């Protein structure tokens, strides 16, 4: 989880210093979901993500330097600069394609699950946000997955802002009259569970079990992971309130901003998990600091790699139209 957060913090700092262009999204506050899902997966499984894909790809084992190079549009990026952050995919890690349309990846995941079922191996995981439930593609993908009984696991990361907190000018998340988001997949007769996005252990246990059920041919499953949005991603362009995450915040330290402090206490999977490890004596502060130093160095290295990499040659623009 630490690696993902440090990667995303690098992105924000690099974007603020205008090192790369284009809009982008960060995964801070949802790291536990990607890690717990991907830990339950094997090489023959498929992962479908959206525009908020950095965490999923890192958890799936993608190299941070090639990812950062792609975000910079450099030749050494996974797609040689053609996908950028919105469509980042890593074929050899079972992340064949990433759609930037809301709900665009849902039918893809159902199709891949169909192929897995026919082949007798592999499951297909689809990460999507709560807004996907407003798109027709969601229903068609769900109904197909249920009718064909394919090994598909739909992971809905519901980071919608609770209505009370919706201030003017911010982008409202999903607008569903459903009392509970989970009512919708349930009405499609698909086994649905709700998991707390801040509890890394609960996430790990749930996804270990659910991936097993799906793999054994139990048909599709829908999981709503409830996460509260990280204060830094309210504005259109993400920012670091009070700078990068500090290990001290897991101990006695506190950030100045009250909303961030509250969020760390109640919703941040990383802070809560670190506190749990400390309480259980599973790790010492110095071990944590060493781990953190390695993560920071790795991600700083990725940034340097991206900055130093060359841009693709102009004629590359004409390649890869046809396989």
């Amino acid at each position, binding site marked *: 989880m630490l690696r993902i957060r440090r990667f995303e913090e690098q992105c924000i700092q690099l974007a603020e210093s205008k090192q790369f262009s284009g809009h982008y999204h960060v995964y801070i506050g949802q790291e536990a979901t990607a890690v717990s899902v991907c830990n339950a997966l094997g090489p023959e499984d498929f992962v479908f993500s959206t525009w908020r894909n950095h965490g999923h790809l890192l958890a799936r084992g993608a190299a941070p330097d090639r990812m950062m190079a792609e975000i910079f549009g450099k030749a050494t990026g996974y797609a040689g600069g053609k996908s950028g952050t919105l*469509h980042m995919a890593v074929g050899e890690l079972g992340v064949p394609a990433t759609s930037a349309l809301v709900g665009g990846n849902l039918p893809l995941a159902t*199709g891949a699950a169909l192929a897995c079922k026919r082949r007798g191996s592999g499951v297909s995981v689809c990460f999507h946000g709560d807004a996907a439930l407003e798109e027709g593609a969601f229903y*068609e993908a769900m109904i*197909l997955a249920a009718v064909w009984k394919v090994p598909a696991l739909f992971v809905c990361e519901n980071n919608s802002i609770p209505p009370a907190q919706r201030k003017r000018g911010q982008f409202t998340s999903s607008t569903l009259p459903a009392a509970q988001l989970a009512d919708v997949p349930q009405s499609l007769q698909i086994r649905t569970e709700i998991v707390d996005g801040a509890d890394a252990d609960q996430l790990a246990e749930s996804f270990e079990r659910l991936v097993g059920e799906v793999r054994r041919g139990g048909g599709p499953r829908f999981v709503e992971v409830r996460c509260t949005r990280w204060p830094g991603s309210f504005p259109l362009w993400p920012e670091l309130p009070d700078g990068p995450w500090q290990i001290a915040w897991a101990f006695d330290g506190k950030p100045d901003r009250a909303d961030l402090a509250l969020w760390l206490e109640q919703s941040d999977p990383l802070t809560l998990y670190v506190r749990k490890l400390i309480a259980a004596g599973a790790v010492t502060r110095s071990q944590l600091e060493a781990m953190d130093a390695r993560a920071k160095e790795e991600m700083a290295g990725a940034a340097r790699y991206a900055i130093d990499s060359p841009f693709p040659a102009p004629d590359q623009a004409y390649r890869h139209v046809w396989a």
Partner: protein
Amino acid sequence: MKISFAEGVAKAIQESLAANPRVLLIGGGIMGLNTAARALLDPVLRDFASRIMVTPISELGLAGAGVGAALAGDRPLVDLSTGSFIFQAFAQVANEAANIHYMTGGQTSVPVTFYSLAGRRGGGAAQHSHATQALLGQVPGLQVLTPGGAEDAYGLLKWALLESRNPSVYLSHPLLFDETAEWIPHDPFLPVGKARIRREGRDVSLIASSIMVPRALAAAETLQRQHGISAEVVDLRTIIPLDRDTVLQSAAKTGRAVIADECHHSYGVAAEIAATLAEKGLASLKAVRRVTMPDVPIPFSAPLEAEITVTAEKIVAGALDAVRAA
């Protein structure tokens, strides 16, 4: 031996399913409402029942599932039934399938084939009669296959299902099912992207594809018998890739080009070919004419539909106009 267009389609599906376990069929209404042609598919649907996915009516979901299965190594044929229904699936056909290979910098390819029974069928009215080549023809990354004869109906579909590495839209046509053609089993397959000269000629080139091929051939007969005009018929076979060289060579030889197409007049396939001819500025080119549907939705009533239909007679009139012009 002679085979019909419908037999070609059924044969291609049956042989592809037999040849490669990764081929599968999403949806199975392939032949639309033509019961005779449907009967050809019944044995195939029986023999490969486990590889035919019965589906609800959700074109967007089906197309997306086809793309997803292709990403995971399968080679699906997705039946989007009537041509006009492809619009519901446009986000998956044109915005996902076509872009993925490029967006991933070549990491992933999407060998999916979308079967679409497009074109004016008679009485279909505005929502069952679309010819969609013009819109699909503008999408980089998508192959658009428009067979005009039974041998190509078979060859192009089998190529798409077994060999193509890119997403294709295979445009079948409800009025072509009974067209027949000589078919030699081991005949070397004319590569995709090459047009077929169906009839040699000297005075005017009739450029056609899909349903326009038999009508252009009929027009050529009339021009020869009644007007002594020798017409060459060029069957494009595919809109993407478009064999511009063969079109240019034929137009240079005859000096006149008449493009017959079932898409609407403005911004259609015929416009692209006419512009290509205009752009190359062939010294010998004396006249170019487009013979297409006017810019109107397809009306229901028979006399109105007949008025706008591109018939062999209209192709003849276009050719005469071109010959008279220069």
